[in-house]
């Protein structure tokens, strides 16, 4: 006997299912559940904006309140995706403006967002609450002004790492005096000075403000005023952390910070004067997240703060912390889950600080909860990697960036195959891996054999032949995103594993050896993939079949080729031969 569930009871059950996976599961049970579910799904995540069209999303899910969309591939962060490639959000915004008048949240990553889009958002969604623009570009402070002026119920405005055409800081003054709902503001990527009095008044009248990340232009002297008006802050990003030496600077800061009893996260600290760092000591005991990645200060000054944070879970820091500083982290920060060490002088020929593989080994030994690593350094050894693997089999994300491409094990001069092999073999829950250093096809054999939970893999200047790529494509069952640059992988592995590409979100290959002919073949064989050849070098017509393409981006899609491509991007499909004439 089937249960005749009243719709509202089933809907109520569904309201407790919050992951895409669970929602997708229940929608497949039968047609009736599919119908009920699609009318009550409120959050949508689109991992690739070209995998589906706005209208297809709207047709299936008519009552959405929150949308998250990603655009350009990850290698765009390294300037490998040419300007004008795509990722425009406007078609999404304009379609949703008609269909979702009650939309509350938009989160975008690596998308091109115009001022028109921002204006549309500000005017069409009456209950708009959350705007997060992560690594986006294409808009100016004029667009921000429309958001400030029109979004009466805005709770969150987060511009993390976006590239904004910063015309003036005046946009902040567009928040009306009646506006009091702000909970989170992140303007750290902006360079202009915002009107400080407008900022102060805004902070004063928003009692629920829990996260405030200022930009560099906010001077240190102004910090105390702000913190005194917002003692409820949980996350705070300073501006430039320097001031002319005056006797009242430090005492004012100390008093201001000590009033913020709920602070858990600190960031900012541009141009930091170490003498003023002790001002944060009073909040250190509660701090779980520290971002010092803009603070190239001596190790002992960093360490003086870090060792006072026993609850630290996330630490982002420059390599000026050095091995000795990381030893201290390993000793004092037993709750550490995520470590990111960035290079203070990435283009320098020689090491400017004493940060080597030893620092990472030390943290892997001392921090039992360490799950996530991003580490820039100048030397590495297989022994160190093996030690890290043995110490920390619970690693989930491991991204190692040895600055010099193809650098071997500095002790044995061997490739680092065995070291990375140890990482994939020991760390059975590893989901994300970035490789660097001298690597042969062997490392890919290890990865294909052991990387069974690997979802994202980044490869640069590695491998010898197509077998390398073949091991990865045939072995890594859960692979979703693969990005490769400057590696000798060509047609054979790609064509032999063509079907695999339909099980992944995307594949990026640049400066490899994939021929134009192979791309056309892939496009014909797998019509449900978009095989995009990106080539800025000249006319496609003159290209011969055997010519290697500059860049290749392949992704699965339910809607076929896109129509917003610039002339240096071509989608290989069934018409490809005809289109060339």
């Amino acid at each position, binding site marked *: *006997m089937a249960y005749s569930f009243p719709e509202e009871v089933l809907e109520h059950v569904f309201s*407790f*299912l919050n992951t895409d996976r669970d929602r997708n599961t*229940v*929608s497949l049970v*039968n*047609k009736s559940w*599919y119908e009920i579910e699609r009318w009550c799904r409120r959050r949508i995540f689109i991992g690739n904006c070209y995998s589906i069209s706005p209208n*297809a999303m709207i047709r299936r899910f008519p009552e959405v309140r929150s949308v998250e969309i990603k655009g350009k591939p990850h290698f765009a962060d390294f300037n490998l995706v040419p300007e004008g490639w795509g990722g425009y959000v406007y078609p999404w915004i304009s379609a949703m403006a008609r269909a979702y008048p009650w939309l509350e949240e938009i989160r975008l990553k690596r998308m091109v967002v115009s001022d028109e889009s921002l204006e549309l958002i500000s005017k069409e969604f009456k209950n708009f609450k959350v705007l997060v623009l992560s690594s986006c570009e294409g808009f100016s402070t004029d667009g921000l002004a429309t958001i400030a002026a029109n979004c009466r119920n805005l709770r969150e405005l987060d511009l993390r790492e976006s590239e904004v055409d910063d015309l003036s800081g005046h946009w902040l003054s567009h928040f009306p005096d009646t506006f009091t709902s702000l909970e989170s503001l992140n303007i750290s990527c902006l360079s202009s000075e915002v009107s400080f009095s407008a900022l102060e008044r805004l902070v004063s009248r928003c009692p629920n403000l829990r996260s405030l990340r200022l930009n560099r232009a906010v001077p240190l002297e102004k910090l105390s005023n702000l913190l005194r008006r917002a003692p409820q802050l949980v996350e705070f990003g300073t501006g430039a952390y320097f001031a002319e030496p005056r006797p009242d600077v430090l005492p004012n800061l100390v008093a201001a910070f000590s009033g913020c009893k709920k602070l858990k996260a600190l960031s900012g600290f541009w141009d930091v004067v170490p003498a003023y760092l002790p001002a944060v000591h009073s909040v250190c005991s509660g701090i779980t997240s520290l971002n010092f990645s803009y603070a190239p200060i001596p190790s002992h000054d960093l360490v003086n703060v870090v060792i006072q944070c026993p609850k630290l879970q996330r630490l982002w820091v420059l390599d000026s912390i050095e091995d000795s500083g990381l030893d201290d982290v390993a000793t004092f920060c037993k709750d550490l889950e995520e470590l990111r060490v960035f290079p203070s002088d990435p283009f320098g020929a020689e090491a400017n600080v004493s940060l080597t593989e030893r620092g990472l080994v030390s943290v892997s030994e001392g921090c039992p909860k360490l799950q996530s690593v991003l580490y820039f350094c100048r030397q590495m050894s297989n022994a160190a990697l093996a030690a890290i693997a043995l110490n920390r089999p619970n690693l989930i994300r491991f991204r190692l960036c040895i600055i010099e491409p193809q650098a071997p094990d500095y002790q044995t001069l061997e490739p680092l195959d065995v070291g990375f092999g140890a990482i994939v073999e020991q760390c059975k829950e590893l989901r994300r891996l970035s490789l660097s250093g001298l690597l042969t096809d062997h490392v890919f054999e290890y990865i294909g054999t052991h990387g069974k939970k690997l979802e994202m893999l980044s490869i640069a200047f590695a491998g010898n032949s197509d077998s390398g790529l073949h091991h990865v494509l045939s072995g890594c069952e859960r692979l979703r995103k693969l990005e490769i640059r400057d590696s000798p992988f060509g047609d054979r592995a790609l064509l032999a594993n063509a079907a695999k590409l339909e099980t992944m979100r995307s594949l990026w290959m640049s400066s490899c050896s994939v021929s134009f002919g192979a791309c056309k073949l892939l496009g014909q064989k797998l019509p449900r993939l978009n095989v995009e050849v990106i080539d800025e070098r000249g006319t496609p017509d003159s290209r011969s079949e055997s010519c290697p393409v500059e860049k290749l981006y392949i992704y699965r899609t*339910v809607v076929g080729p896109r129509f917003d491509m610039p002339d240096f991007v071509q989608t290989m499909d069934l018409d490809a031969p005809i289109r060339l004439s």
Partner: protein
Amino acid sequence: MSTKSQEKQLITLKSWDEEEFVVEESVAVKSETIKNIIEDCGLELIPLPNVDGKTLAKVIEYCTKHSTGSNDDSEDLKKFDDEFLDSKEIPVLIDIVLAANYLNIESLVEKICTKIADRIKDMSVEEVREAFKIENDFTPEEEKKIRNEHAWAFE
């Protein structure tokens, strides 16, 4: 209308399969439906054609526990709720939630919906169909198309 007496007012609830349960009025009115019937009609024997005896017994168990006067947030009550619900298989939970929905016992409906959702979280599509005794009425092509759409666009 019955006259108020010093004794607690008793109500008889009768399931569709003729089982009768005598309960205090204060327990019975945890159900908004029953409360309205009592207020509107003053009945002392209330037939409930949409609920079977086994399920009604369990609903009464819940309502009895929740009318002891103690705070709904108390540790004891939470413990009771968890044990009461965790020990039951999905088909039983479904029976209870349907009854609770018909009887309009909001807190019980809410709690069961949460529990059912928790169980669904670990299930595959086939397991959900089995637990809810639902036939798949998608054609293989239709199902494949939706699965692709999920994996390719919505995950």
